[in-house]
């Protein structure tokens, strides 16, 4: 995120209602020029709605949308100098790849020569030259995906919008296309806004991630910020796989940067605080990621919790252990050659820096 870049796309206090249902409420957002911004959130949280409002496909109930500093709230989609890649690709089945790519140019009344030249150029970038005279039905999933991108590319838009573009591909192809998209962004330096429910895609591609929760921004930040300093329990739970472990603890003492908590099972632990909480809460949620829990002997002084291993999932390079503790079942990520097995009694430890406390409203303390 370059500090000097002016916002390229900006949403100001935008609300979208479908009848009585509020899909997006009072949301503000800036997207920097040349950035790759991901809109991330679970299905139904309003990602597509937000993207479609930027595209101009969905009328905005209240609020404003700016592109390049000019208000476009009521401007036609075709006049916003943006292009969109649809989840379904929406390739016109009755047109060849060439016609699909050139469609917007032909609508705009470009000359045959210009259409051909620009289609060729796009085809070269996307390695589609050999498929130009095929119909979409004769292409593989990855090729269709590239045609969809080509159709956006040919218009030389200032902003690219992607709505879950990889979700129709199989796992292997998805990784490959992800890399190609990253390369494309590096080559074009265009602004890209990318909707996904897949945190891996968002984390690997984006330099800024907007996490949405039921039509509101849960947090905006770089991938690592979201991982290391989640602003609330929702983001903490959503980012990271397997998901963060949460359990109830009692707050016993609060200092400048740390707090003491009483854990289920009787032991106490120290946990880092972002800032001292303004009020003292008796019980809070403690969150710790599976990869930040490690196995120790039950009698070890550092063991915060102890329990019995319920299930062992060995994934080769790492092992997931489901440990039944007084705090409930916790997931622990261990190395691939972890020595423990089902039924073992183990202690769990974590460091103060790697644990988070969440208040009753879900905000990180």
């Amino acid at each position, binding site marked *: 995120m370059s500090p000097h870049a002016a916002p390229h796309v900006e949403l100001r206090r935008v609300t979208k209602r479908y009848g009585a249902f509020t899909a997006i409420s009072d949301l503000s957002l800036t997207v920097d020029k040349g950035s790759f911004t991901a809109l991330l959130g679970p299905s139904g949280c309003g990602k597509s709605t937000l993207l479609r409002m930027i595209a101009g*496909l969905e009328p905005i109930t209240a609020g404003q949308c700016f592109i390049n500093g000019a208000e476009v709230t009521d401007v036609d*989609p*075709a006049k916003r100098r943006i292009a969109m890649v649809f989840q379904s690709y*929406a390739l*016109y089945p009755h047109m060849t790849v060439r016609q699909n790519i050139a469609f*917007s140019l032909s609508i705009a009344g470009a000359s045959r020569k210009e259409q051909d030249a620009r289609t060729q150029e796009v085809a070269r970038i996307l390695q589609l030259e050999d498929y130009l005279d095929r119909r979409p039905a004769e292409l593989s999933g990855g090729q269709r995906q590239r045609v969809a991108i080509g*159709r956006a590319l040919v*218009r030389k838009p200032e902003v690219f919008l992607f709505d879950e573009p990889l979700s129709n591909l199989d796992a292997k192809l998805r990784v490959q296309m992800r890399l190609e998209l990253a390369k494309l962004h590096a080559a074009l330096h265009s602004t890209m806004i990318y909707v996904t429910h897949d945190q891996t895609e968002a984390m690997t591609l984006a330099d800024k991630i907007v996490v949405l929760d039921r039509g509101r921004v849960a947090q905006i930040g770089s991938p690592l910020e979201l991982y290391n300093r989640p602003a609330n329990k929702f983001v903490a739970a959503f980012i990271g796989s397997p998901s963060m472990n949460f359990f109830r603890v009692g707050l016993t003492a609060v200092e400048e940067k740390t707090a003491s908590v009483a854990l289920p099972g009787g032991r106490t632990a120290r946990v880092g605080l972002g800032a001292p909480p303004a009020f003292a809460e008796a019980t809070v949620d403690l969150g710790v990621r599976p990869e930040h829990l490690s196995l120790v002997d039950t009698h070890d002084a550092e063991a915060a919790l102890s329990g019995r291993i319920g299930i062992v999932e060995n994934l080769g390079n790492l092992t997931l252990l489901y440990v039944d503790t007084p705090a409930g079942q916790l997931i622990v990520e261990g190395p691939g050659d972890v020595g423990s097995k089902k039924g073992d009694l183990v202690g769990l430890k974590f460091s103060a820096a790697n644990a988070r406390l969440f208040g009753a409203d879900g905000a990180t303390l």
Partner: protein
Amino acid sequence: MTGAVAVADAPLSAASRLMRLRRIDLIGALVTLATLLGAVVWAFPLYWGLVTTFKPETEIVQPGVQLWPRDFTFENYANVLTQTKIGLWYLNSLITSGAVTIIVVAMAASAGYAISQLQFPGRRFFWAMILASFMVPIPALIVNHFVLMSQFGWVNTLQGVVAPQLIAPVTVIIYKQFFDQMPKDFREAAKMDGANEFQLLFRIYLPMNWGVTTALAIITFIAAWNLFLWPFLAVSSEEKLNVAVGITQVHDAFGVQYGRDLAVAMLAALPVAVVYLLFQRRVTQAIMLSAGIKG
């Protein structure tokens, strides 16, 4: 049924099942035979009419059943082509049916598109009107269609034959249904590409529903070609008749001549028969669609 019982019963039940299978196959074979026989009976009148046209008149009126002409001849057709105005009637039928087809399909596609895809005041009203007109028997309107055509001065003209045939609510309904089913993404992608509503219709929606258009065009054409009552009323001079009505006039003009009467009928049926045989699948599809069964 337990295993033990099944084993004990095995020889008997196998035998009885075989018997039943045989009986069933016999029934099945009889049904198939009856069906094939039925098809022959059904096709026979058409065959008999056709084969008669290749017999000389003297052979036609001889007693006995002659399934193939003893004296194969084209003279009936030659007579019809030279002595009747069938060429002109063909032309009239071609012009009126072609015009009806083009206008109906264009109008129905446009209206179907607007009602399916656009929001505008009166949309629901027009849709209700189309559904209502679906229930109206056109033959009940012949009197006032005639009055209207005479007010236009269109009685005994080709445009007068065409006009009342343009009410085709089913075609609009079918187009609307098909456009309704188009995924929204195509529309939005094209909008982002800068297409307006007309470009959307003519470059995306219609080409993507080419099959429906062909099917609807074919049966609209066949129906217009075959129409009897209205052209019969609207046309008074032999020069403006269509084929379907025209061939009933031959009789009046020349008296009974079986071969010639049938030959002219076969010529009238030829184009629709050819169209049907060429586009069987489309005709079938269109019929299903207009009956409300998705093909």
